[in-house]
């Protein structure tokens, strides 16, 4: 694994590969996930999922289910405690009460002593539906004569998930006055796009389609709620966003946030799909029955009724001059939101027009409602869809003009100061550096030799993500024995707590073993934003660094008094504070711990506090290259080698950073080759399982070369920038470009299934 690093100061901990602090517990099976928790008197929930995509509920009959021994309750919307309902916000429609909007929408909840009993009784709940016309395809849904996906216009869309992942200022227009399935739209224009095309020596255009895909965390959603006699609501949820869950649950159920405790249990994979969803429902169920209740979704239920990632249609026209200068981009970007608004139109539009310098832009984005499950975030939401179109078009232009595809990208790549379509200028970014790193990989250098093979080819693509912004805070405390506790409120999804330990140990010049990091619950932890939008290290890491610096100052102040040496003349190392040049004058952290925590202690406890607000993004770019072999008779695509170069600013823990890059790239390969939620014309999901919804297996993913590129960010800790999301973005385009390189056929729809490859090759009749 390579690392492209600028000159920088030497550090003791940050920047060095360390083992995750939670790895031992995980390899031994000791880590407690949500479904591993045990509470007394716990009831298990199974939801009745609607078997129709659009319908009115006529009647719900529970008598047969209630007759099953062990069933405690069957609850419908009418049985829930009073709560705020917003018909435009998925999580605030706890159970469908009148209109079912998607196949799989929960209409009732069965509570029983064990999950088998609950599931058995669930199948005995009788629901009568009056079916309504369902609209399934987003382009169909945009037609004037299309049936409406729902009665009633959208007034109060919930865009918090999107904002958690990407925080930018831009105006999104709400729906028009006349009834339509288009729930919002957005336009960005720059220059004169027609003049741009007139000036171009080559113009390419096409329509690229990306399928609906599922985050497919291996741990399905799990939520436990308990409402005790004193009016305290406790929630344990496999969520990336405990404070957001608290806010939304409190708001929905009319409780003060101070009375709601949300514990983010160890998240068994989230990727944006575990922000918040069924917490208000499960809490309402617990309040209704006054017992702790647990919802553990099965894989099938999760695929039917969580929040997967949208299908998209991207129409793109691009013009380039003979010297490789990109002069015009015109795009129409359509995301299918499913039954509730919340599709990533804004990031899609920003990135399709914001990855290359281009004087003339005309970009329109549409969010369309259909009768499918509503979508949520998946790692760089919306970005792979537009990169698929843009990066395919870049290769098509390069080919048309007989230019090197890497050189063309280098020539046009955005840099610091270049504007996004919204006009906002980029801070320091490393897209060019990523391309330069890819140019040095074996795959890229050997591409001419690889092409000698009749069915092998090499494809390149880039992608980026802007990142989310939320404030964050942290505390760093000195314990009686001289060890250090770091407390944060951010769920550790990607190894961030390990990085926080490195940061605190760095600032306090301690061995890593003396630092412990804990994610508290929302009653005990300092506030942090959601662990989404690749921002946890970027924001919470800064807070931890500040808190450690604060603790350091407090330690030095007390040591200065004890040793009668000015603080500036003190140094600290391995838990000992000593006067520079006077080694006999020293005091240990252990002594300081006692002096600040013991009976009749002379000094107040040492609690370092760090709180930051983040207003500047640190976007992350990546360039990726694939070597593939295509069987021209079966259409099968095999990825032989793959490399990812990504600018991470500064890799606090290179081992984790590489893992993020490889993991995201493998997800990109999944959506490039296999993954697709298939709905029939009536809106029924045909493959709600991990057999027919195909995640890439070990056989399908070659070892992925990870090249860390470090162009420091302006605000991140030690120059770190966002890491998690960019790596998923280029996959579909890189594979499509490699397939085109291998067999000369361009595929415009992801995943690139054998069938689509064969059709592109003209080998399938009908």
């Amino acid at each position, binding site marked *: 694994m390579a690392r492209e690093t600028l000159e920088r100061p030497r550090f003791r901990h940050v920047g060095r*590969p360390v*083992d*995750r602090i*939670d*790895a*031992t*517990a*995980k*390899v*031994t*099976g*000791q*880590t*407690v*996930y949500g*479904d*591993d928790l045990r509470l007394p008197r716990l009831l298990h929930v199974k939801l009745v999922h609607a078997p129709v995509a659009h319908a009115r509920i006529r009647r719900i009959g529970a008598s047969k289910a209630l007759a099953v021994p062990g069933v405690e309750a069957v609850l419908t919307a009418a049985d829930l405690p009073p709560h705020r309902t917003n018909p435009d916000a998925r999580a605030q429609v706890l159970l469908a009460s009148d209109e079912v909007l998607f196949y799989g929408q929960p209409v009732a909840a069965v509570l029983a002593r*064990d*999950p*088998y009993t609950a599931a058995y009784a669930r199948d005995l709940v009788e629901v009568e539906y009056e079916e309504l016309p369902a609209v399934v395809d987003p382009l169909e849904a945009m037609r004037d004569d299309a049936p409406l996906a729902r009665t009633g216009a959208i007034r109060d869309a919930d865009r918090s998930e999107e904002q958690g992942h990407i925080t930018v200022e831009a105006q999104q227009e709400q729906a028009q006055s006349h009834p339509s399935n288009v729930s919002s739209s957005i336009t960005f224009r720059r220059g004169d796009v027609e003049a741009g095309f007139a000036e171009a020596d080559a113009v390419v255009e096409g329509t690229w389609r990306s399928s609906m895909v599922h*985050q*497919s*965390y*291996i*741990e*399905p959603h799990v939520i436990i709620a308990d409402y005790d006699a004193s009016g305290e609501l406790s929630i344990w949820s496999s969520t990336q966003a405990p404070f957001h869950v608290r806010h939304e649950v409190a708001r929905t159920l009319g409780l003060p946030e101070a009375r709601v405790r949300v514990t983010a249990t*160890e*998240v*068994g*994979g*989230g*990727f944006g799909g575990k922000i918040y969803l069924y917490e208000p429902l499960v809490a309402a169920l617990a309040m209704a029955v006054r017992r702790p209740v647990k919802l553990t979704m*099965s*894989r*099938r239920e999760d695929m039917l009724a969580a929040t997967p990632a949208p299908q998209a249609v991207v129409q793109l026209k691009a013009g380039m001059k003979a010297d490789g200068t990109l002069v015009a981009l015109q795009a129409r970007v359509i995301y299918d939101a499913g039954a509730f608004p919340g599709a990533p139109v804004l990031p899609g539009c920003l990135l399709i027009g914001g990855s290359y310098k281009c004087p003339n832009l005309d970009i329109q984005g549409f969010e369309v409602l259909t009768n499918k499950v509503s979508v949520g975030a998946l790692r760089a939401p919306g970005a792979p869809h537009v990169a698929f179109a843009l990066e395919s078009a870049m290769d098509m232009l390069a080919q048309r003009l007989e230019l090197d595809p890497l050189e063309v990208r280098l020539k046009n790549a955005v840099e610091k100061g270049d504007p996004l379509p919204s006009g906002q200028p980029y801070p320091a970014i490393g897209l060019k550096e990523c391309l330069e790193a890819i140019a040095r990989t074996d795959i890229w250098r050997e591409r001419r030799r690889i092409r000698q093979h009749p069915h092998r080819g090499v494809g390149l693509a880039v992608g980026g993500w802007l990142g989310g912004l939320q404030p964050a805070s942290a505390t760093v405390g000195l314990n009686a024995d001289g060890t250090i506790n770091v407390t944060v409120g951010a769920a550790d*999804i*990607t*190894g961030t707590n390990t990085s926080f330990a490195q940061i605190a140990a760095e600032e306090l010049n301690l061995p890593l073993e003396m630092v412990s990091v804990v994610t508290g619950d929302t009653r005990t932890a300092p506030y942090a934003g959601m662990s989404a939008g690749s921002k946890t290290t970027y924001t919470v890491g800064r807070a931890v660094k500040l808190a450690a610096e604060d603790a350091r100052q407090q330690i030095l102040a007390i040591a200065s008094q004890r040793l009668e040496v000015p603080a500036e003349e003190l140094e600290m190392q391995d838990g000992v504070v000593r006067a520079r040049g006077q080694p006999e004058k020293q005091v240990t952290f252990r002594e300081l711990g006692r002096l600040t925590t013991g009976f009749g202690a002379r000094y107040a406890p040492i609690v370092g506090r760090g709180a930051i607000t983040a207003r500047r993004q640190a976007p992350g770019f990546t360039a990726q290259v694939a070597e593939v072999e295509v069987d021209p008779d079966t259409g099968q695509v095999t990825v032989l080698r793959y490399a990812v170069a990504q600018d991470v600013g500064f890799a606090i823990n290179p*081992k*984790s950073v*590489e*893992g993020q890059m*490889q*993991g*995201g*790239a*493998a*997800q990109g390969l999944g959506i490039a080759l296999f993954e697709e939620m298939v709905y029939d014309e009536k809106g029924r999901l045909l493959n709600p*399982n*991990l*057999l027919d919804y195909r*995640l890439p*297996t*070990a*056989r399908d*993913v070659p*070892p*992925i070369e*990870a090249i860390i590129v470090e162009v420091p960010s302006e605000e991140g800790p030690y120059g770190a920038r966002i890491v998690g999301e960019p790596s998923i973005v280029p996959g579909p385009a890189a594979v499509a470009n490699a397939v085109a390189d291998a067999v000369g056929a361009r595929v415009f729809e992801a995943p690139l299934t054998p069938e689509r490859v064969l059709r592109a090759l003209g080998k399938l009749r009908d």
Partner: protein
Amino acid sequence: MPKRVITLTVNGETHEVAVEPWWTLLYTVREELGLTGSKEGCGTGDCGACSMLLDGRLVTSCIVLAVEADGCQVTTIEGLAQGGQLHPVQQAFVEKGAVQCGYCIPGMVMAAYDLLRRQPDPTLEEVRLALAGNLCRCTGYTKIYEAVLAAAERMRLEGARG
């Protein structure tokens, strides 16, 4: 109908457990024996998170009925570390950064352990073949391949020494 009492020897310890005929081995081990290390990811034998050894054979315990395991020897992830010492496979997973969210890891470690019992010196391709039934969504598998190959090497060295 009363529950059926079955005998399971799990990680060397014999238990009598009363089960319903439709309970899975995974559910029984997790809920009745409190061994929650094995995970349910799909419930249909497609993801491997529930992998354990049943009479020495690697199985997906989410689709094995507990009654079918009556009288059998079971080894779960909790049975791998001996005397507080991580198994070399576990150690390698920690050191190579092969663990992210960790949900697939108990099953993945069991599959790797099973492979190395059968093939002490696997090639990369043999590792990929053996792990194909264990889905991981976080790591892109790369560091898992490295961990399994490193564990194999360590076990061969230790075997040669011991």
